[in-house]
Each structure stands twice: as C-alpha cells, then as structure tokens.
C-alpha cells in the first residue's frame, strides 16, 4: 500500500502564464522610466555640435527650447532649405521671440523662479552665426540672458 499514488498517464503540462503579466508590467515600467517625453515635434534637422566643457541642464520645468536648423524634408516645399527657427510647434522669425519668452514665463508658476529660467538653444552645427546672433540679440533685448548651447560630449 503506497501513500503516493502514481499518476497514470503524463500529458503535456500547461506552461503557466501567471507571471506573464508581471513581466509585461516590468517592461512597461522600464520604458516609462527610460523614455523621455518630447513635448513638441521637431521640424528642423538638428545635429548638435561637440564640446567638452558641458554642464547638465537642471530643472527641466525652467528650461525653454529654441531650435534652429534646416527644415526636415516634409516642410521643405513650404519653408525651403534655409535654416529656420522653431518655437514650440511652429516655424518663427527671430522677432517673435520676445512674445514666446513672455508666454513661457507665464507658465512658470512661482515668480521667484522666473529669473532662473534658462533658454536651451538646440542649434544644428552647420548653421551660420547670423541667425543665431539674431536670436541672441532678441534675448538680450528682453534681458533673458541665461542661455545654454546644447552640445554632446566629445568622448561619447
């Protein structure tokens, strides 16, 4: 007499899928953490230059972006190939910058933080300085002087 009954036929056991949701969840979390939210579509081709003396941009909420580069293929028929400025979701002229900055400033809730705002210039390396100078001049005129020229590290 045996306590353990021998099972008769052994069929193909089902592979448990109980942990599958966990795995999927984990992947989800992983991608949630890693992905960077991009708030506006970039309509200009930008390859930032290299530099070595870089600093990290702190306080994402206090950073406004200005993009300068040649329009991507989709927009060439309308805009041509000459380098353009992109503010938010549209092409713009340098003269629109004061209004754009004023708008961005209102988005910062605490008035105290508004002085700490930085303008991140994401500029293509092939762009001539003329258009960049126009932007700089506009920023200086409205006394918005903290600027960061985005670049990548030479080592990477």
């Amino acid at each position, binding site marked *: 007499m045996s306590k353990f009954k021998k099972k008769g036929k052994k069929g193909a056991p089902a592979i448990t899928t109980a942990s599958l949701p966990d795995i999927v969840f984990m992947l989800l979390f992983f991608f949630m953490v890693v992905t960077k939210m991009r708030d506006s579509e970039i309509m200009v081709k930008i390859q930032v230059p290299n530099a070595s003396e870089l600093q*990290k*941009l702190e306080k994402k909420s206090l950073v406004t972006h200005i993009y300068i580069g040649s329009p991507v293929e989709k927009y060439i028929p309308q805009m041509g190939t000459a380098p353009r400025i992109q503010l938010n979701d549209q092409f713009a002229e340098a003269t629109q910058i004061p209004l754009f900055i004023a708008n961005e400033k209102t988005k910062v809730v605490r008035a105290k933080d508004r002085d700490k705002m930085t303008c991140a210039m994401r500029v293509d390396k092939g762009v001539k300085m003329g258009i960049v100078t126009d932007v700089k001049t506009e920023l200086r005129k409205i006394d918005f002087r903290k600027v960061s020229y985005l*670049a990548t590290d030479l080592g990477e």
Partner: protein
Amino acid sequence: MKTKKRIVPVISAGSLADVAFLLLIFFLVATTIQTDTGLNVLLPAWSENERFEPIENRNVLSVLINSENELMIEGERAQLSDLQTRTEQLILKEAKSPRLAIISLQNDHGTSYETYLAVYNEIKAGYNHIWEDESLRRFGQHYDDLDKKSQADVRKNYPLVISEVEPSRIAINQ
C-alpha cells in the same frame, strides 16, 4: 512507420519572474536617463548705444572668427588648439589682475555655429582649468565637488568675462 510519443518536459515558469526582475534591475542600473547637456552662457546685457569703455589692452584677449571659420588671436592667425593656453596666459600672466581679464569675442555672420561653439568651448576650458587648479589649491577638492558657495568663491577671483562684439562682416587680412 511508428512515431515515438514525445514527452514534453515541464518548463518551470516560476523563476521567470526572478529573471525578469534581474533584467529590470540591471537595466535600471545600467541606463542613464539622457539629460540635455550644454554650454551655459550668460549673454551680455543689452544696451541701446554701445559704449566702449577704454580698457587697457593688456587685459583683453581679442578673438576673431571670420566667415571662413578662421581664427585670429590678438591680430595673428592662430589655431583652435592654442586658444586654451592663450586664455590661461592672459588670466594668469598678461592681465594686471585675473579679475580684470576680458576676452573679446567677435564673429562674422557667416561663421558656422560649430566653430563658434568650439571657440567658446576652448575659452571655457581655459577657465575651468584655472578654477580646478584654484579649488585644489584652496580647498584640496575638485571644483565639481565643491558646494555652490565655494564654487562662487573660486570664480570670484577669476571671473569669466566674455565680451561679444556685434558681429560684422570682418575679414582677416593675411
């Protein structure tokens, strides 16, 4: 023909979660979330009528970049690689005091942004080098490891002043 009946072995899925966890933790540790990096710059204040205060020439290092992306330091053609040493020389030796040292940077409308930034980078590298030396001497620590106040303290003695002249269509005479 007789086919042998295969016995499908049990794949234990219990440890799968552990494996996934390990992977997750590995990636969490290994990935650095990409942050934007850039050269931080404080633009000069705007004044309607540009006044030129007479500044002693020995305190100024004039740097020009023309539309051909050629570099001129103090009236002579120069290589980009010289700029960092020239900057350090100006601050430590040529200028009356490091506090008075000014770098005057002028570019052309046709200068490429890449060159401009490379030049700016070299000047910044010169200053960073000096700040690093100074903080090692005074605090025995790397500049990056100092707290904000000490960093400002170090910078006070060697302020980074870059005066940007309005760009014109300058040409370097050879």
